[in-house]
Structure formats: C-alpha cells, structure tokens
C-alpha cells in the first residue's frame, strides 16, 4: 500500500489575532513523524484557532507553520491540502451527498480541472471506507446518518485525502463513549502524524504520545501525558480537582475529576 511517508510538523512562534484581539500568542509546537500530539486546555484557550492556522483557515499574524521544511502558508492551496487533512468542527447538514460522495471529497486536492476519477482515486476512497468501517454507509444519505456514523465518514474523507498529516478539532465531540474510543482507535491505526485538540483529558492521555497544554493562548506545559497531567496543573489550568491513577488495563494516567471546592475527602493541592 502507498502509505504516506510520515513527516514533521513545526509551529514556530505562531501568533493569531482575530479582530485585533490576540487569541494565540507565540506558540511553538513540534510534532515528530508518526507522532500523535494532543492539544488540551479550557474553552477559549486557543486550541481551535491554532489548528485553523495549521490547516490554513486563519493566517498567522506572525510565526510560521512548516511541514518537511516547507512553509505551509507559502504553498499553493492544493499542494498544502495534499500534506494536511483536517476535520474541522463544522457541520453543514443540507448536503445532497451520499456517504461515498462525502468520502470521495478527500480526493479534491489531487484533481485538476476536468480530471476524472481514476482507479487510484477509487482505491483510496474504498480503502478509507473500509478502514473506518463505513462501507455499508456508502450508499446512504450523509445527512441521514447518526453522529457517530457521520464522524467516521468524515474521517474516511480525511484518510482518502492520503496526507501524511491529520489535524483534528475535537473529533469526539457529540459522540457516545464507545464511538469516542472507536474513532480514536481508527485515527491511531491509520499511522498518520496527528495533531488533535481534545476536550476529554483521559482520552488525550490514552491516545496521545505527547500533550501540549494551552491556556490563554499560550503553551503552559508540554510533555508526555504522565509528565503533564498532574494534580497541580489540572487545578491551575482547568480549575478542577484531579486525582491521578494508573489505568489498570493500559497503565496510562487516568484522572478522577471533582469540583474544585475543598469539600470531600480528597487531598486538595497546596
């Protein structure tokens, strides 16, 4: 199979202003080849804005986004889209598209004007549907699918794009527990280099090699889940009390969360 070669993504002092307000200020992030890196942080910490600067929806005010040495913002749009596939948090339900047609959209950056679908396109689409277990949804109307089915078809679209990099903005939003695991399992199995914003700290701990913590548009901590997810940090950044235990099955850190009030039997952080 023609698996895309993994490559490194480097964010170098990225700063994004929206209507004169600085949302993201001077962020440095490096994602190694094949690595899955998670962005965590409270609402409004700049996670989505930072990701938008990576998949070229918001041009950084300063700083650079580099992939394999090339400045992503200087590449022609289609060439950049052959390097990075994204799952933004937008959902336009009024589409008259089938599951197959939605997945096939991933081939857009590979096709010039009037170019017909080739065997390579059909193979990429078929493989993406198979990997995401959505072959049976190919003929269904996308608008009529459940939330979990839609998200898997959208992931199929991103995989059909056959990019080395995958950028995901809260991919597990609105999914039930089983589908959350399922989707992130599929992302992991794809072997892509991943940069993902995640709300759920335990999912972030379970699926990411490294985490960056964003707060007020800045990186306040970075490292492996074990290094980052401490009681002190969770209290400072999220304002909740966390007890960190090891997941008995995976050995990865697992947070038991409680409100910040010093009530209850837990040892409040000092």
């Amino acid at each position, binding site marked *: 199979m023609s698996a895309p070669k993994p490559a490194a993504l480097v964010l170098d002092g990225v700063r994004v202003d929206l209507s004169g307000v600085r949302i993201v200020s001077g962020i440095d992030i490096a994602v190694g080849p094949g690595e899955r890196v998670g962005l965590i942080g409270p609402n409004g910490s700049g996670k989505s804005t930072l990701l938008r600067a990576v998949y070229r929806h918001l041009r950084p005010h300063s700083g650079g986004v580099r992939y394999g040495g090339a400045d992503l913002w200087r590449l022609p*749009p289609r060439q950049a889209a052959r390097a*990075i596939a994204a799952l933004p948090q937008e959902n336009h339900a*009024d589409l008259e598209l089938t599951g197959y047609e939605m997945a096939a959209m991933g081939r857009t950056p590979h096709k010039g004007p009037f170019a017909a679908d080739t065997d390579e396109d059909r193979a990429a689409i*078929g493989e993406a549907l198979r990997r995401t277990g959505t072959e049976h949804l190919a003929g269904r*109307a996308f608008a009529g699918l459940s939330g979990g089915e839609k998200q898997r078809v959208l992931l199929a679209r991103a995989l059909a794009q056959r990019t080395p990099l995958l950028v995901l903005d809260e991919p597990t939003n609105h999914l039930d527990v089983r589908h959350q695991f399922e989707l992130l399992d599929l992302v992991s199995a794809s072997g892509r280099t991943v940069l993902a914003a995640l709300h759920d700290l335990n999912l972030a701990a379970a699926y990411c090699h490294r985490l960056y913590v964003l707060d007020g548009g800045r990186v306040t901590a970075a490292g492996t889940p074990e290094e980052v997810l401490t009681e002190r940090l969770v209290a400072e950044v999220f304002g909740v009390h966390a007890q960190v235990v090891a997941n008995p099955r995976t050995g990865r850190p697992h947070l038991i969360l409680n409100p910040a009030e010093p009530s209850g039997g837990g040892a409040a952080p000092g």
Partner: protein
Amino acid sequence: MTAPARTAAPAARGRGPVWPGCAGICAVLAAGLVASVCLGAVEVPPGTVLRIIARHLSGGGPGPWTASQDTVVWNLRVPRALLAALVGAGLALAGAATQTLVRNPLADPYVLGLTYGGAVGAVAVLVTGFAPFGPASAGIAAFAGALAAFATVYALAGARRALAPLRLVLSGMAVTYALSGVTSFLVLRADDPGTTNSVLFWLFGSLAEADWGDLGLPAAVLAVVMTVMLAQARPLNALLLGDETATSLGTPPARTRALLFLLIALLTGIMVALAGGIGFIGLVVPHAVRLLTGGDHRRLLPLAALAGAAFLVLVDIAARTALSPQELPVGIVTAVLGAPLFLWLVHARARDTSGL
C-alpha cells in the same frame, strides 16, 4: 493493518446511473422544440415544419409551402424555441450556482439582487425613451443593471475579507427590495399606457421578441460559463462542506465564491436582458434535478441546464397556446406551474432525507 486496495463498485455511490434521466430530459427537450415550432395560430403540419427547417439548413430556396408558413416557422418559431431553450438553460444553471454560492437550496438569482438590477436597467430605458443603442438599448441597459447590482452586492457583502454566504443573501435581498421600489416608481411615472404595458410584459418575462440575431450571444455566454463552472466542479463541491473544510481540501472559499458570483451575474444579466424577469426556473429546476443527481456539480450542472431548457420550451408553448390567440407572459406561467411544483419538491425532500 493494510488490506489490498479494492475498487469500489459504482453502485456503492448510492445512486443509480444518471443516463436514463438524462436521456429522458433530452427526449423531452427535443419533443418540446419540435412541438414549439409546430404549434401556434398558423397551423403548419410537423412534416412541413421539418422540411422547411431542412431546406433552410441546406441553403435551399422556396418549397411546396406558402411564404407565410416559411416565415412563421423559420423566422419566428425556430428562433423563439431556441431562445427559450437557451434562456431556460441559463436560468437553471444560474439558480444551481446561486444555491452553491450561498450554500442554501432555497436561493436563486433574485436573492442576489441581480434580476431586479437588470429590471431597473431595462425599465429605465423603456420609460424614459432614452435609447442610445437603438432597439438593443433595453437589453444592454438590463445587462448593465445586473452588473451594477452585482458590484453593489459584492461591495456590501465582501468588503471585509471573505465573501460569506449569509452576508451575500442579506445584501442581495436589501438591493432587491430597493430596486423593486425603483422599478415600481418608474412604472408609475410612465404616463403612456402603452409603455406601462410593455414594461409589465417585460417584467414578467417574454420570448416574443426572439430573432436569429439574438441567439449567438446567450449561446456563447452559456457555453463559456458552463465550461468554467465544470472546470471548477470539484472546488464547488468542496464549498458545500463549509469554508474551513473547503480550505482543508485546497479550495480557497472566498476566491472560488467571487468567481462563481461573477459567472452568475454574467449569466443572469444576459438572460434578463433577452427575456426579462422569468422567475422560479432557477429555484425549481436545480432542486428537482438534485433529487436525481445529488449535489455533485459534475452531474448537477449539465443536467440542470438541460432540464431548464426543456422546462422553458414547454412553458413557452403553454404561454402561447393556453389563451390563444392572446399570449401570456412566460413568467406568469413559470410562477403558476413552479409554485406547486416547488412545494411538492420540498415535501419529497423532507421524506427523502432528514428534512430541511
């Protein structure tokens, strides 16, 4: 784990083949064109009609039919039927493109202010009698009016960075309301009842002035716009998914939308200039065709144009024959037929998928 790549069967798209529907529409269009040339106040048998057309195409002289039959068929009915087909195709294509432009299936060039821009231009010429280009003045003024409306709406909606769908609709509706007021004012000011009549007839749409000389320009514009839109079919598909997704698929949404808006303005301007304000085709036809083709522009655009052509040819037959010898404005017929058809489509859609 990697399984060997297998080619997905076409049936996996979830749609039947599109060619039976396509063949059906082509058959209706062909039959409509023939019927349109045969029917009318002067009876001409179909066989004679075909022989007259064949004789003219081969550059021959008079045949065993009267000179008035020859004139009616070749100089009046054939150009009129062809103009109906071209205008219907253009309006349906403009409607389909507008629905993509504003990402809403309930839109047509009216919501962008283009149709009334054209109306103001033409009506101003008819009412004031100011005609620097002779008989072509109303058409030229309509085209200019549509482009002026385009520029106004573009500036109102796109002044800040991106051309967002909602701002486009709101700006377009504002311009439409303002211009429809101007049009009414101009009509009221016309003191000559004959002028008012011709203005009203023009506002409701008419193909009565069709002439061989009128066909070249809309055919060329239609061909150019269709070609450019088909070249952009994949970016247009991407626009349906939202601006962020479109960007991530390598389609710059603002730039693509600006090009699309310009193409719609050209198309609407030329069609309004030739045939006046014919409503409902841009709304109803793409909607109906989408049930058959889905949202993929590579299938939708050509079929919508064909269906629009067939629809307006049939409507024109009805407009000429329903109250014969009196002629109805085609815009009235499209509205009378289009409104119930549209409601039926909305219901069909609601059953079909998750609803509007």
